[in-house]
């Protein structure tokens, strides 16, 4: 079987698009800047808790007295205290994990649903294609945040629900892009060849079509990750994500908003972190998409 497969055109370059994409992406200045930003923030989220002077829900105590809420920076609390007298710096260092983990999970779920739907629609064409994609269009009629909020209103603020809602609303967007890219691949000779060899449909989808749409898929997944971060952070900012006393960047912003006049750090740090994170991932995504356009032009596939 594998001997035959090698002889089929299209297989020879199966692993090359990947390397080409990564090399082309790395060559862009904006990718490096974006990657640096993302690495610093992911590093902060992962390692930060080990350097936090306080536990995330521990009150700051000075001379056996609880610190005031919204205390300005001092020796005991380097970046001041939050709305109920906890250490802002410690809560910031603890608060990145949830945003990152939840948005990564939601994006993965979105790809896990959207990828097979898009592939299947492109390969089957006809009525099934129409029904699948029109069904996906309906979900696109809602902004992601709105549909997530409808789910939250029904079930209540649950962590799994946020991942599920953001994942399900990500899926149609992924499916659209996958279908768009796969429709062209389906027409190619090596797919016909595999069909005539009697390869099962699942094998053709995963082994023949998928490797040829990796560039648009990776670009889209990166873009979706940026949006997932935005939606997940917005949900926890609105108070529907992690519940107090959890340390979470989105939640922190809302908790410390009233203190902006006297103690801005509890808002400024998480705002800057979320903002930079989305800018970083979108710079990487832009680098990927520029590189993938170059690859497609270079290999004369259009």
């Amino acid at each position, binding site marked *: 079987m594998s001997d035959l497969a090698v002889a089929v055109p299209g297989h020879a370059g199966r692993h090359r698009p990947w390397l080409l994409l990564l090399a082309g992406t790395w060559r862009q200045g*904006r990718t490096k800047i974006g990657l640096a930003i993302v690495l610093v923030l992911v590093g902060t989220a992962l390692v930060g808790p080990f350097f936090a002077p306080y536990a995330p829900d521990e009150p700051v105590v000075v001379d056996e007295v609880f610190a005031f809420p919204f205390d300005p920076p001092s020796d005991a609390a380097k970046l001041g205290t939050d709305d109920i007298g906890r250490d802002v710096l410690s809560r910031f260092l603890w608060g990145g994990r949830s945003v990152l983990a939840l948005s990564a999970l939601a994006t993965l779920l979105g790809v896990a649903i959207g990828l097979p739907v898009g592939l299947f629609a492109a390969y089957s064409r006809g009525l099934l294609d129409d029904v699948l994609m029109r*069904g996906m*269009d*309906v*979900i696109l*009629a*809602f*902004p*992601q*945040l*709105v*549909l997530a*909020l*409808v*789910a*939250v*209103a*029904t*079930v*209540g603020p649950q962590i799994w629900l946020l991942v599920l809602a953001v994942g399900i609303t990500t899926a149609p967007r992924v499916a659209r892009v996958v279908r768009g890219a796969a429709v062209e691949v389906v027409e190619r000779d090596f797919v016909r060849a595999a069909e005539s060899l009697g390869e099962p449909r699942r094998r053709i989808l995963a082994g023949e079509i998928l490797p040829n749409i990796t560039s648009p898929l990776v670009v889209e997944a990166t873009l979706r990750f*940026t949006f997932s*971060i*935005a*939606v997940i*952070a*917005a949900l926890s*900012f*609105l*108070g*529907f994500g992690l519940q107090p006393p959890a340390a979470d960047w989105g939640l922190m*912003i809302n908790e410390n*908003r009233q203190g*902006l*006049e006297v103690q*801005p750090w509890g*808002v*400024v740090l998480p*705002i800057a972190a*979320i*903002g930079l994170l*989305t*800018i970083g*991932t*979108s*710079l990487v995504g*832009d680098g990927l998409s520029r590189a993938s356009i170059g690859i497609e032009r270079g290999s004369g596939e259009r």
Partner: protein
Amino acid sequence: MRILRGIPGFVVRRLLLGVLTLWVASLVIFAATQALPGDAARSILGRNATPESLADLRQQLGLNRPVVEQYTDWIGGVLTGDFGTSLAAALPVTEVIGERIEYSAFLMLIAAIVSIPLAVLIGAVSARRRDGPFDHTMSIITLALAALPEFVVGIAFVVVLATTVFHVFPAVTLIDPGVGPWHYPKELVLPTLTLVIAVTPYIARIMRASMVEILESDYVEMARLKGLSERLVLWRHAVPNGIAPTFQVIAINLAFLAGGIVVVEYVFNYPGIGAGFVDAVRSRDMPVVQALSLLIAAIYVVLNLLADVATILVSPRLRTSLK
């Protein structure tokens, strides 16, 4: 199907598709609010609810009846303009959200009036000075701004212009009920700016791409060869043609404004449908949640419909292909 030809036929077919999309959207909303795991009555009243109060609320929400009947009742009401009764306010939903719709529409309108011309300008000039310093700077700025979540932009404005650094604009909107939002220009500035920043980058980027293509086309070359000034070529010949392909993106982004106002209105405490939606989600006011999410989906469908029709009307090539 002979009648459904030409532009009227296209509009009718698009209209039918829009109605179909909205109907399925209503099914999605209903399924999300009714069929999700969990007992709506219990989640509204909390764990300590007595069995009697649970039974009462189930009765009031109609949860005892078959699901299909609940749906037909709801959608039948919607079609006659009756969205049910708000659980939190004990008033008809239409009364609760009526004034809020006015406030949000006004906010979205000024955001659109500011951002569309601004985006067209940025896109056109970027394409005209392609790969120059202006183009590169705008490319990075629009990319970065497009990535930022609206609440990050909104809170950043509050920090810089309303509280910590400068005190130029109010951080929250304190508006007396019954007075139009246009009486509060200062309060409108920051929410509007936030929405403008949320949508302008997308439209500007697509406008640039569309203009780059058009500036390389034969008829623009022709206009140049006629000896027209570059400014005239750009604004008289290229821009009007470059806008058509952006209608879709403008529509999607205006529809996105309808979602964006949810967070932006909450940040600034602006009394529109967005803040109302968050309140309703928090208090589990399901009739209001259903009405507002259907409204937001309807805005999307209507704007897409208008964009499709507008694209057909302004593109001579598409217009003739329909006949």
